[in-house]
C-alpha cells in the first residue's frame, strides 16, 4: 500500500498510455489504496469483500462506518466505478482517452479528500477541523 505522497505522485502525469483497461484498473486501485490508508489509520483491517461487484465500494462503506462525514466521498468512489465500467465495457470507444482523463481527475479528488481527512483526523470533525487550531492559538 502506497503512501498518499506516492499516490499523488502516481497521478501527476497522464495515465492514458497503453491498454485502456489497464489504465482504468490502475486508477481504480489508486482509489482502493487511498481508502485502505484511511481504514488502516482507524486501526481496522481493510476488507477484501466486494459490494456491487467492486472492492472499492466495500472499502468505502467500511471507511464510512461510524463516520458519516466520510460519505462526502461516496459519489467520488462511485464515479470511479462508473468510469471504470465505461472504459472496460467499450475500450475502443472514441471517448476512451477523455474518459480516462476524467477518471484520473476523479481518482485525484479521492486521494486529496482522504489525504486531507487523515491530516485533520486528530483535529476533530472534518467539517470544522479548525477548532483545535483555534484553541491552540488562544
Amino acid at each position, binding site marked *: 500500500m502506497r503512501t498518499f505522497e506516492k499516490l499523488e505522485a502516481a497521478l501527476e502525469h497522464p495515465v492514458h498510455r497503453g491498454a485502456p483497461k489497464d489504465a482504468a484498473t490502475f486508477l481504480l486501485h489508486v482509489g482502493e489504496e487511498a481508502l485502505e490508508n484511511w481504514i488502516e489509520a482507524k486501526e481496522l483491517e481493510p476488507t477484501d469483500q466486494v459490494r456491487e461487484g467492486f472492492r472499492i465500494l466495500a472499502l468505502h462503506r467500511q471507511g464510512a462506518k461510524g463516520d*458519516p462525514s466520510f*460519505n*462526502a*466521498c*461516496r*459519489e*467520488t468512489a*462511485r*464515479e470511479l466505478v*462508473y*468510469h471504470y465500467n465505461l472504459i472496460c465495457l467499450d475500450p475502443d470507444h472514441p471517448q476512451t482517452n*477523455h474518459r480516462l*482523463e*476524467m477518471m484520473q*481527475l*476523479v481518482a*485525484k*479528488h479521492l486521494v*486529496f*479528500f482522504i*489525504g*486531507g481527512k487523515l*491530516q*485533520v483526523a486528530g*483535529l*476533530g*470533525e*472534518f*467539517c*470544522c*477541523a*479548525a*477548532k483545535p*487550531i483555534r484553541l491552540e492559538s488562544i
Partner: protein
Amino acid sequence: MPDRKDKYKEVAYYHGCALEGTAQPYNTSTRAIAKELELKLVDIKNWNCCGAMEVKNVDPEIQTYLSSRVMSLAHNEMKQDVVMAPCNGCYHNLKKAEYDIANKEESRAVVEKISAKADHPKYEAGQVETIHALDWIKFGYGEEELKAKIKGGLKGLKVANYYGCMYTRPRHIFPEKDQGGESESTSKPHYMDDLLEIAGAVNVEFPMKTACCGGAHTLSDSDMSTKLVLNILQAAEAAGAEVIATECPTCHSGLEMHQIRALKRLSKQTNVKVIYFTQLLGMAMGLSPRKVGLHENVSDSMKFMKQKGIT
C-alpha cells in the same frame, strides 16, 4: 405538481449570514429573479445563524435549536409554511433539525428547554417545509413557464453544474429525494442542470457534481482546499465547461478564492468562470449583469459574458 406552485408562490426567505457577506451576489440575483418571476420572498425578521459548522462542532443539539428557532419564527410569527434557504449550509441544517426533531427525543427536549428559556414557541416537526432555491424556481414558478421568460438565453454556454456535498447529504434528512419522477437525485443531482438547460445552456458531463470543495478547510488547511478546488476546476475544463454554475456560497467562494490561490501558489491557471446559477438564470431572462450582481463576484466574468453575447 400544481400544489407546489401555489405553496411556493410566497415563501419565508432565510438568506442566512453568507448571503449578507461573501455571497451577496447570490442574494442580489435571487431577489432579482423573485421580482422578475413575481414570486414573493418575505424576509425572516430577527433571524439567527443556522448553527452553521461551528456550533455543530461544539454541540449538535444547539445547532438543532438554532435552526429550529428560524423555522419557529417562520411558522409562529410569520404564519408561513415554507422556508426557502438558498445557502446549502442553511438548507442542510434546517433539514437536519427537522429530521432530528421528528425522530430524536433528545433533540426535542433541548429545543423545548431552550425555546422556553428564550421565551418563544418551540418548533414542532412538520410545521414548515424547508426548500432550496432550486426547488423554489423549478416548482414555484415551473419549467414550462420559465421557458417563456427566457429572453436571449445562455446561447449554448457550456456549463458544469456543481452542487457541492451538502445539498444531498446525508440522504436520510432529505426523504423527498430519490423518489423517482420529478424528485431530486442524491447521487446525480439535476435540478440546476434542468433549469439552466431551459435557459439555453449546454450542460457538460461533470463527474464532480457533489465532490467536496474543502470549503470548511479554507482557513485551517488552505493548501488542501486549493488542491481540491484546483482539481474541480481542472475537471470542469476537461469536461469542456466554460462556466461552473454554483448554488452554495461556501463552494462558490472557495472556487473563486482558490482559483486565484492555485495560480499564485502552484502556478496553475484555470480560466473556467464561477457564476451562481441565479445569476445565469437572471441574465438568460434579460436582466443586466449589474442587476444580478455579476460585478460583485470575486472573479471577473463580465468581459467573458459580454464576449458570449449574453449580457
